[in-house]
């Protein structure tokens, strides 16, 4: 079996410091300082001040000292691993401190609702009106439910701990995978740190959503595959097979795409192994096991998955073709969809520099792998992933493909991390004579690459906290849409069928426990809410969808599931008054008037 040709990593024999802890206390101090600075920046942002300089200072504190330390050859493996874990958790704290009181990402609401349903009903596989597929993959919410039950915690706190466990697992899994595969603890540490440069790493990958747990589990499954392959004795492989089976099942019940990627990855690994070394010794058994579990789950529980994923993928593919044929305008980079939020020029320079450095790192790493590890199937596969990642970057110009490419990046970057790290280690070894200068340069480059990922991953004005819960005399206030949603649940009871704009619908789902319907696809809620006249067809739509409440929110931000979850600062942009007043007709009850947000009882319009 030749799945791995590198020797298992050995602990470094000499250390720069005789202490067991090495630089760890100082790295801990730097990470803590970074977390403190970002907390300060968030506090300023929540009170209406600009704090982007503090944000970047925090990022530098979190990454640069760790990168510099990990470049050193003389660090104990335990210190390297602890450094990587500290940075991973420190970066997770950035997201937690951005949203310290409630989940505010569009996808977090449906998952929170699933968790609330499990806690209230004690059953899995409930329903979800916003993302119907999510209850069919209940892994994340199930773990969070037990954490809430066991710890006596709120669903929000349990969710934060669950995702934190996922982040811890991700850093551990990446490090162990890279260490085994690259045969170098130094490459493992740098690779795991470089993985933090994935554009989604800082925020999106640690939202309370299924991939945040499934991807770390899949990474551990890959590590288990490597360890399985390293055992020559069939008997010694059994425990690894059992571990793989358990972890693969956890991936399968947690996230559809992650399970498909895991199976595809294992199959590709088998094929490459077959090509390079013959059929024997490839992880056919593991691939088959994961494949069978995935198909069984798809058949027994995840029946709607194909229908859910196929429009996304076909739309992305269509737009790629249309963009190549110049039939569709390309998506503007460094700006949001409407172009209202534009990335500052300095950030654009850093982002482009980071991409170039990353490309350079991949090329150096590939050259090295070509010379030394080209017979290692998994290494070959990871290098392919690194190339594919670079190849997908131009697809960010295609509006419909952007999201797919961005999400695929989380998986493909596993290859980028190790490939670049191997190249970096090679450069460090070549620059031994000017060690300090080279380490400083490389730590700076790693920080720039990380910053580039942050810039590409999340809009500039959304990286710091917004006013979600504000202090007033004698207590706190939630945004008006949350108060309206809570009122609906308290007075009208749960499970009302509600038409609402995107952001409001999510509040009504989780704060009102209502069946929220939103968007422009079966039923076309947006069309009904945005129209200035109530037509007979709209009444028919209300009847056919058995809608009991319509939430008319004239604030245009209420349709934005990225920015629509906070207090308004200043007068908001409003839709025409007729979009709301069209419901002031006989048969409709104007039940709740909160100014821009009005709740109508529309059963009489059926």
């Amino acid at each position, binding site marked *: 079996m030749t799945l791995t040709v590198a020797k298992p990593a050995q602990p470094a024999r000499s250390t720069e410091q005789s202490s067991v*802890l090495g630089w760890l*206390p*100082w790295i801990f*101090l730097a990470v*803590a300082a970074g*977390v403190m600075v970002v*907390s*300060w920046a968030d*506090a300023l942002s*929540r*009170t*209406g001040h600009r704090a982007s300089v503090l944000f970047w200072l925090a990022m530098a504190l979190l990454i640069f000292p760790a990168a510099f330390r990990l470049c050193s050859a003389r660090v104990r493996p*335990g210190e390297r691993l602890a450094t990587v874990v500290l940075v991973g958790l420190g970066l997770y704290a950035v997201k937690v401190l951005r949203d310290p009181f409630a989940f505010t990402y569009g996808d977090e609401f449906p998952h929170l609702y699933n968790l609330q349903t499990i806690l209230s009903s*004690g059953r899995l596989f409930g329903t979800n009106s916003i993302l119907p597929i999510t209850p069919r993959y209940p892994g994340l919410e*199930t*773990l969070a439910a*037990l*954490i809430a*039950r066991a*710890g*006596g*915690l709120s669903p929000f706190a349990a969710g934060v*701990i669950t995702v934190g466990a996922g982040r*811890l*697992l991700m850093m*551990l*899994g990446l490090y*162990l995978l890279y260490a085994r595969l690259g045969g170098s603890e130094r490459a493992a540490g740098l690779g795991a740190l470089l993985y933090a440069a994935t554009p989604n790493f800082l925020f999106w990958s640690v939202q309370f959503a299924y991939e945040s747990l499934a991807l770390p*589990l899949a990474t*551990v499954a890959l*590590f288990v595959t490597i*360890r399985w392959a390293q055992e020559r004795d069939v008997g010694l492989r059994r425990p690894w097979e059992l*571990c793989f089976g*358990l*972890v693969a099942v*956890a991936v399968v*019940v947690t996230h559809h795409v992650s399970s498909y990627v895991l199976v595809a990855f294992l199959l590709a690994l088998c094929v490459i192994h077959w090509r390079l070394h013959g059929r024997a010794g490839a992880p056919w058994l593991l691939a088959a096991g994961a494949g069978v579990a995935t198909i069984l789950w798809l058949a027994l529980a995840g029946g709607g998955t194909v229908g859910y994923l196929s429009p996304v993928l076909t739309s992305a593919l269509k737009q790629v073709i249309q963009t190549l044929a110049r039939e569709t305008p390309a998506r503007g980079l460094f700006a949001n969809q409407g172009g209202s939020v534009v990335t500052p020029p300095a950030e654009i320079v850093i982002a482009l520099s980071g991409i170039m450095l990353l490309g350079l790192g991949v090329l150096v790493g590939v050259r090295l792998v070509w010379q030394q590890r080209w017979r290692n199937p998994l290494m070959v596969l990871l290098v392919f992933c690194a190339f594919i990642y670079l190849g997908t970057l131009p697809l960010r110009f295609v509006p419909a493909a952007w999201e797919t490419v961005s999400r695929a990046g989380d998986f493909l970057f596993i290859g980028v991390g190790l490939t670049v790290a191997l190249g970096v280690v090679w450069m460090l070894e070549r620059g031994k004579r000017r060690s300090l200068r080279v380490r400083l340069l490389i730590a700076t480059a790693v920080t720039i690459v990380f910053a580039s990922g942050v810039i590409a991953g999340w809009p500039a004005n959304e990286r710091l906290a917004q006013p979600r*819960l504000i*202090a007033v*005399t004698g207590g*706190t*206030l939630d945004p*008006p849409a949350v*108060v*309206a949603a809570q009122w609906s649940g308290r*007075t009208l*009871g749960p499970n*009302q069928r509600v038409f609402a704009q995107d952001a409001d619908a999510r509040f009504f789902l989780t704060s009102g426990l209502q069946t929220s319907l939103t968007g422009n696809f079966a039923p076309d809620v947006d069309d009904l809410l945005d129209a200035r006249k109530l037509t007979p067809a709209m009444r028919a739509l209300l009847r056919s969808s058995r809608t*009991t409440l319509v939430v008319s929110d004239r604030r245009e931000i209420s349709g934005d599931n990225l920015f629509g979850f906070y*207090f*308004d*600062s*200043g007068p908001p942009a409003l839709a025409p008054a007729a979009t709301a007043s069209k419901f002031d007709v006989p048969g409709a009850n*104007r*039940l*709740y*008037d*909160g*100014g821009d947000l009005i709740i109508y009882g529309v*059963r009489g319009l059926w």
Partner: protein
Amino acid sequence: MVKPRTDLALVMGLALAACVFAALLPSSVAVLRAPLCLPLVLVAPGYAVVTAIFRPGELRTSELLTLSIAVSIAATLISALLLDVLGVALTAAPWMGLLTALTLAAAAWGTAHGRSRPLVFRSIPVGRAQAGALAAGLALLVGAATLGFTPMSAPSGTRGTSALWLLPAPQGRQAACVGVINEQLHATTYDVSVLLAGAPARRFGPITLAPGATWSRAIAVGPGRPVINASLSTAADPSAVYRSAVLQDWNVAVASC
């Protein structure tokens, strides 16, 4: 026989303790309950299973830790699926009981097969500067959490609002409920007027509400389910209708008001 002072004995003790704490400690003391019970969810079952199936010394500590967490998560999910299939509600008692049973069984099997390891506590030398760095880091984290989890006052320009609501009383009573929610950033004084079938019926006020405070009243409306109009005005501009609500066809299912 389970030997005391081994890792598997410790895991068995932790699992049992977590189960007992979860049963005895109320949810209101999450500060105590969470650190005591969460190891059972996130580490103990996986540690017991992994230690039981691998030979001693086969795994590095980092590998053991990683697999313990991953297998614990898997055990949690698989046990939940099993209970759900059996029709058992996913409440704390059966779920934690099943995980504890799994942990105890795996630990006992591991002990019987010589997989337990003696507990060895190594002291880690920490220099004065290192201790200082650790203490300073801890202080910074506490400061960051304190600052981060404290609600701040609103930025200038933040808009508050007020809401008026009107509902039929529940259970078919010949009454309606009217209410006000003050979401302004300051205390506000309101007047509420109610018209029954177009005629003035009730007037409430002045009602002064603190930020976040609510007010509601039930109004008898008599038979016939008349059209009800409610309007809200503020003391700052009493002549203007600030909010309005209308109950026309009473076709609203109400849980409480």
